[in-house]
């Protein structure tokens, strides 16, 4: 499936850079402790290191903004901006549009026909789904691990998140990741991907509750 932010694209490069940086640093440290040979590094070496760092900052900013803008672009199809525009004009680009109310403690999903479901949202494989999220009490989080996207929702703001539903039918976790009170641990919902033929077998698919 196509992931929202595409972790195996640019993000994987950044993670590889981070990992190699850690390993390089540890090798330098333990070489300084364990190696027999002694060596006084020149200041030029440090400046070179800083130059590499500056290059990395430039590259990381480019990759991160590129990735996030590409994601955001999908929200802006049709109109210049979907975010904050609730007349629905920009929503043509999506197969499904849900208004999500995050509350203490759970998620309410309102579909295009104004039908409300609590803590479960049913979509079909591969559908492009838009979630328009609001909160009416405290700060909540909205995280769909399988789609690799997180948002944080302020009560006085609105957030929009889109995903591509997984191809595999099953139940996928939606969870709050911001502490929102004692019920935070129970603030979960299910993204139910319904196969064309199987509604009854849902009980055995995916994860247990």
């Amino acid at each position: 499936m196509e992931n929202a932010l595409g972790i195996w694209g640019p993000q994987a490069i950044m993670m590889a850079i981070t990992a190699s940086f850690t390993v390089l640093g540890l090798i330098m440290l333990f070489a300084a402790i364990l190696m027999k040979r002694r060596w006084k590094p020149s200041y030029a070496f440090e400046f070179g290191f800083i130059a590499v760092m500056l290059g990395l900052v430039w590259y990381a900013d480019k990759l991160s903004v590129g990735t996030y803008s590409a994601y955001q672009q999908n929200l802006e199809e049709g109109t210049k901006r979907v975010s904050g525009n609730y007349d629905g004009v920009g929503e043509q680009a999506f197969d499904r549009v849900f208004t999500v109310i995050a509350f203490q403690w759970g998620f309410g999903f309102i579909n295009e026909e104004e039908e409300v479901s609590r803590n479960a949202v049913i979509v079909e494989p591969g559908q492009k789904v838009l979630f328009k999220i609001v909160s009416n009490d405290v700060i909540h989080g909205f995280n769909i691990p399988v789609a690799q996207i997180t948002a944080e929702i302020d009560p006085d703001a609105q957030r929009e998140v889109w995903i591509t539903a997984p191809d595999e039918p099953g139940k996928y976790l939606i969870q709050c990741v911001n502490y929102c009170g004692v019920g935070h641990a129970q603030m979960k919902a299910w993204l139910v991907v319904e196969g064309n033929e199987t509604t009854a077998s849902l009980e055995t698919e995916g994860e247990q509750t």
Partner: protein
Amino acid sequence: MSDAIKNHGPGMLAHWTPENIVGETSIGDILFSNDYRKIALKGIFTAFIMLALGGFFALAFRSELTVPGVQFLGAKVYMTLMTLHGMVMVFGFLIPLVVSILYFMLPKVMGTEKLYWSGLAQLSYWTLIVAAVLLVIGRPDFTWTAYAPMSFRTGNPYLWMGHVAIILVAISEFLAGAVLFRNGISGNFKWGELPLMGWAATTVGLLFMISVLPLGFAGYGLLSDGLHWAQTAFFDPSRGGSIERFLYIFWSYGHPAVYLPFVPAIAVIYTIMPRLLGHKMWSYWSGVVAFILLALGAMPIGPHHFQPVHTISGGYERFVQILTMLVFIPSVLHVFNWISTLFMAPIPASARRAIPFKFMVMSIAFIIYGGATAFLNAQIAPDSDFIHNTYWIPAHFHAMFVGFTAQMAIAGFYYLYPYFTGRMFNQAMGNWHFWLWQIGLFLKITGMGVAGYIYFPRWVYDYLDMPGWMEAQIVITIGGYMVGAGFLIFIFNVAWSARWGKTAAADPWPLEMDDPAAQTAQPAE
């Protein structure tokens, strides 16, 4: 004091005559003496009591989290323990510990032999004690970040105590910062000769005094909103307040809060590393520049803590992202300086044996581990993907807070130990403490990182049986218990050796080379 120590310039002067200060201190001294070493020791041992308390909370909820399902902690109790763990560890253990170690070392390093404004240090200590008592009575369960409006809607009758405690912490840290700043500028030094610990105390003292202002205001706003002191609210959106106001105000303290213990710990490295190695740091100015840049960068980058809060690819968010990554540079300057110093000359056998040296080396390893992951955290895309508020974040800050800051403070404590007890600690127990902590911390931090990568959410007392979640939690719990065992050995060592340890030599940390060839290779600076 040997000439080798005397002639090594700034930063080399952390040497006292070993004496049994702890054994000869009366109760009155403990409570109210303004002698710098007694104030410092009071702070240090209080911090260890806090560590025991916070560690006990941690082991309680680690046991609960080992397997899915509710074992013995319900949501309310779990969250209270979690909140107190965070607050006690940061405000009660880490910051007071490193600040107290600076109180102990600064007067000697600066050559003043007294702590200026020690009355303020005293006041800062007692304010913090009041805050800790309020926290324990009030038992807040709103996490240490106390996000509005959740934090005044938790249905706890003594909630206001938590908010008052936040204000008291701000006052206490402001006073501590003033003391650090005053002592950082106190020595009689020419421009460019101020010891690096002086630079650290000056910059972090200023950072303390500036950054706690928003914390105090956040605490006041929460108190006022929670008790309905006014018709309108600061942070409660249902009464005309703004959450974004809270987020910006809180995190302009919240990010510097990380640097407040971090910078003094760095200063301890700059003080005891040249002392144990017997030569100067690789670069003086690199350290100075890094201290200044770190202090400047601390406050403006706070908003990276709530990156996924709204449409986040705007110019300001991008500015914060870039600035956050640029803070990598002062950190790299420090680490590069330390590694180069280690590389410069043969490491004396005495240093290799010294427990503080071992802790110092491993704390550098953990700053590399935690710091490199911070580079990823700063970026909006991975933050919106798997980083934000998953266990990846505790992995990062436990590497920085425990792996680096706490371990470096412990190194400083071991270094100072013979100077205030007159005796050496037990080497074998020190080694056990060292290895239990390194393995335990590595397991704990790596386990948290893996759990975060598979989206284990923060702040949950119970969780679903998702693939990999329980396995990661088991690893973290094992690591946590190893750290706890190391702590017990450490405390036993501290108590036992104070009475029965070997009497410390006039110079407890003499330079010794086992290898005569290396002895000659060492330039007699």
